[in-house]
């Protein structure tokens, strides 16, 4: 295939394959703002083909070793930004220490996309309908960022700002995501409601709870597909902390969602319907959390 083929629809761009992080950052700096990092390309390539994005330079970061690998570091699991969605299913460390990600992974698109798409890329794009960005909130993850002015770590709670807008500054990229290790006193649950398997969910939700005996000591609940960003529901969380998971508590948490969520207008899923679905899903997941004892 060459450029004469009919399938090429993107505007012409230059391509640079970075071998190191410094090379990637340097290339971006030299291109001004007119560059994009590319890893799995599962969102960027369609955007290029649709000419929604047309950078002069694509910087391929998939050969940077530093962005790879999953390993324990102290109380955290360090998940390299290039970790592919399919590895969330196959990597034993993730199944053991970040089981919520393992549970959410089968809901991420389809196998062909999971084979290429990367964890870091998904979090960096911050699609509010994506599973992984929302799960970084539930997991209280920290996002490690490298850029022209050095490295920093940002709490997931402070990372997602608005629709496709994050704490990432121009020229910065995600190097890894740090997830606190899953503990024996914790329980998790994930599910989503979608019309077809692998579709963008009508509503999705994941939660991680720490129990003190039968009472919830701490819980973080995060939704996808409910607004402009992945969304933690602090009001619902507050109704559960210190409580036993009974029908009354679950109903209270469901009731609190109205204050937590303000779903957008949509012709297929009106706000009231999405709120209803969020309640149904919360009820089902908290029910499962209770059964998991």
């Amino acid at each position, binding site marked *: 295939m060459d450029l*004469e083929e009919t399938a090429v*629809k993107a505007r012409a761009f230059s391509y640079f394959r970075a071998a190191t992080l410094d090379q990637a950052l340097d290339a971006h700096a030299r291109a001004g703002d007119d560059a994009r990092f590319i890893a799995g390309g599962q969102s960027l390539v369609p955007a290029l083909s649709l*000419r929604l994005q047309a950078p002069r330079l694509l910087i391929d970061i998939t050969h940077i070793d530093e962005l790879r690998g999953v390993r324990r570091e102290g109380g955290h699991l360090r998940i390299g930004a290039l970790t592919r969605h399919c590895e969330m299913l196959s990597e034993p460390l993730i199944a053991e220490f970040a089981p919520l990600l393992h549970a959410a992974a089968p809901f991420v698109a389809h196998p062909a996309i999971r084979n290429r798409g990367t964890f870091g890329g998904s979090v960096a794009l911050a699609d509010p309908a994506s599973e992984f960005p929302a799960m970084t909130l539930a997991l209280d993850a920290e996002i490690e960022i490298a850029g022209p002015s050095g490295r920093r770590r940002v709490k997931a709670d402070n990372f997602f700002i608005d629709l496709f807008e994050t704490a990432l500054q121009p020229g910065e990229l995600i190097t890894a995501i740090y997830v606190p290790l899953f503990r024996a006193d914790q329980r998790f649950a994930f599910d989503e409601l979608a*019309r077809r*398997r692998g579709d963008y969910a009508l509503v999705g939700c994941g939660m991680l709870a720490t129990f003190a005996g039968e009472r919830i000591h701490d819980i973080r609940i995060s939704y996808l597909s409910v607004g402009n960003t992945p969304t933690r529901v602090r009001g619902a969380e507050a109704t559960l902390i210190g409580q036993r998971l009974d029908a009354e508590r679950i109903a209270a948490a469901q009731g609190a969602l109205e204050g937590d969520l303000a779903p957008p207008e949509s*012709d297929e899923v009106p706000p009231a*319907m999405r709120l209803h*679905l969020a309640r*149904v899903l919360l009820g089902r997941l908290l029910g499962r959390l209770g059964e998991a004892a």
Partner: protein
Amino acid sequence: MTAPLTSLDRPNSYIGRSVPRPNAKRLLAGRGRYVSDLRLPRMLYAAFLRSPHAHAKIVAIKTGDACAREGVHLVATGADLAKICTPWTGTLDHFKGMTSAPQWPLPVDRVVWAGQAVVAVVAESRAIAEDALELIEVDYEDLPVVVDLGVAREAGGALVNSGSVDNTCFRSQLDNGTVDDAFAHAAHVVEEEFTFGRHTAVTLEPRAIVADYDPSAGTLTVHHGTQTPYQFQDLYSRHYNIPEARVRVIATDIGGSFGMKLHVYHEDMAVVGLSILLGRPVKYVADRMESFVSDIHARDHRVRARMALDGKGEILAMDVEDLTAIGAFSTYPRTSVVEGNQVIRLMGAPYRFKNYRATLEVIFQNKVQTSQYRAVGHPIACAVTERLVDMAAAKLGLDPFAIRAQNVIPDDAYPQTSPTGYRFEALSHQACLKRLHEIMDYDGLRAEQAGLRKRGIHRGIGIATFVEITNPSPAFYGVGGARISSQDGAILSLTPSGEVRCLISVTEQGQGTEAIISQIVADQLGLAQEHVKVITGDTEVTPHGGATWACRGAGIGGETALQATRALKRNILEIAALILQERPSALDIVDGQVVDAATQNERMPISEIARIAYFRSDTLPPGTQAQLTVSHHFAPQGYPFAFTNGIQGCSLEVDVETGLIKLLKHFIVEDCGRVINPMLVDEQLRGGIVQGLGAALFEECRYSDTGQLVNGSLADYLVPMPMEMPDIVIAHVETPTADTELGAKGVGEAGTAAASACVLNAVNDALAPLGATINSIPITPMKVLTALKRF
């Protein structure tokens, strides 16, 4: 009813055998010859600038910068192409009073839907052409947009075509029997208003065309991903004023069509003109986003219908009003009113009542055109009829099977005429109902449903009878003045080695046309199937015919092949008789050998006859001229259509908290007459059912108030996917048509005809205890939750 045994039922017959498709391996091996993959020397690529407005006047088009871009060979507007292409109008004479505005390859003064192609760029690559599109400026002046069907009908409202009285394309009315009287005296009347969303075909391979005009010879060759090469040969010849014999249309492998690729598209017509202007091959392949805004859509009906019954549940009458919106033009050359016409004519088709009234109103609006797509009109007629039958059954306390058994035309009562005037040769509703009841384990499903309901699990069971139109005669298009053939032609040759080459006018779109034709030829000649080569889809090679649409390939194409093969066999046996000094009637051909008809003793291989005829004609008696190539045409006669019938059933579960529906199992009993290849028939049924299930639950082209398609991508437009599809159980009843020797009828649309009706009935069955009803397709979670008042 089961077919009487004939020569087609021999134990070693190819008819009725699940032989694999000869072309399947080639396609799986990546050796398909799709137009999308075609590259010709000196070929250029076209791209189209599309209208962002649903309705606007074109004030000015500035193309200077685009023309100047390196690699661009031509930028053409509507005015440029109008100089060489005559306009077309999507009307037919037998639809009295219908109107539609003239159409050109690209608009000359006005755009009428968002996504309409406005300017063409031809360049050395598609990417360069796309770059150049960004350099074109078009000044538009907004015109009032007509989007909603209801608004389009309001008096004094905005008009799609200024100067017309209103937005009406066509009206039609049927009134048989004494409808008012029947309703006045009915013990029960059920009534409902239904809506059916717009959806579209979503073929795996989008529309693709390579037009190659050779000015030195004055010839036009078009490689076209289409079902109907002969129709396009005629149209390109007429509209570009090129003699028909100098226009060649080649339709080789095609990645799905479903009726979508037999209409004239503006881009396709433009590409032919661009090639004429440039004298070079020009290629255009629609991308997926372009397909959504330019492929024909289908359905989009609002139906109000009522049914009258007596106290015992006998259907007395139906009264139907169908409103349908078709976009800004009626399509060419088949029009956009056939679907509505079939909706009002297929209503109530399985049943024996006689009082029927219907009105049809076809309306223009500023959207892409709708037109014929798999099971034209059938799903709407079936869903409306079958839902009313279920509503009546509920009202009378009858089981859905019982009310149908009571009302269908009995199997022994044929020939019959439907309440709408269709003539039925022989159908098998009673046999199909009985068989479906068995294969569904209907009583078991009902018992399971009752048990689960107590646990808050809401299962639904639905059934839907249907009648399908197949094997159309000239009554379909020809009588309306369309140059669309209802006959087919075949040319059969015995090769010098004793094999057979069959050139036939029916086309292959992946459904196995070539497989069944080779089965019929092999069977009728007495030859192994691998010694038959079937060639389709090239107007320079294959004889003129209707090609493949409206479920005519097996019934009409198959009969053409059968009759042609019998003619060739006669000629072969004539030569064999001369050589063997026998009477031709004393000889037969079995497995490539001429045999004694009585004893089956082998006399000589047909390869020997071919050798002698081709190379040693001197050894034949003087005056003998062996005719080992025959050509034969077959036009259907007798009934204007070969109707088929069947019944579908399904079981599903509704999550009443989320509105999501899980399809558990689907069943069909189908009667397409003689089954030539059971495997291919079953896969046609499965594929058709899946398309019907897509319509039932997922597929809908949604528009904004300003006429923008809001879900024109595969992320947002939901096609049925394997994870959501149930197992499909298939059974057959065989009632061959007596109008042909072969007895085959069509089967390609049967699955789509009733699948959505079945789901509609099953969802309503599930929701019945909760007091909720659904009357709209697709059945989305929002519609279910709204019906249940859950938010």
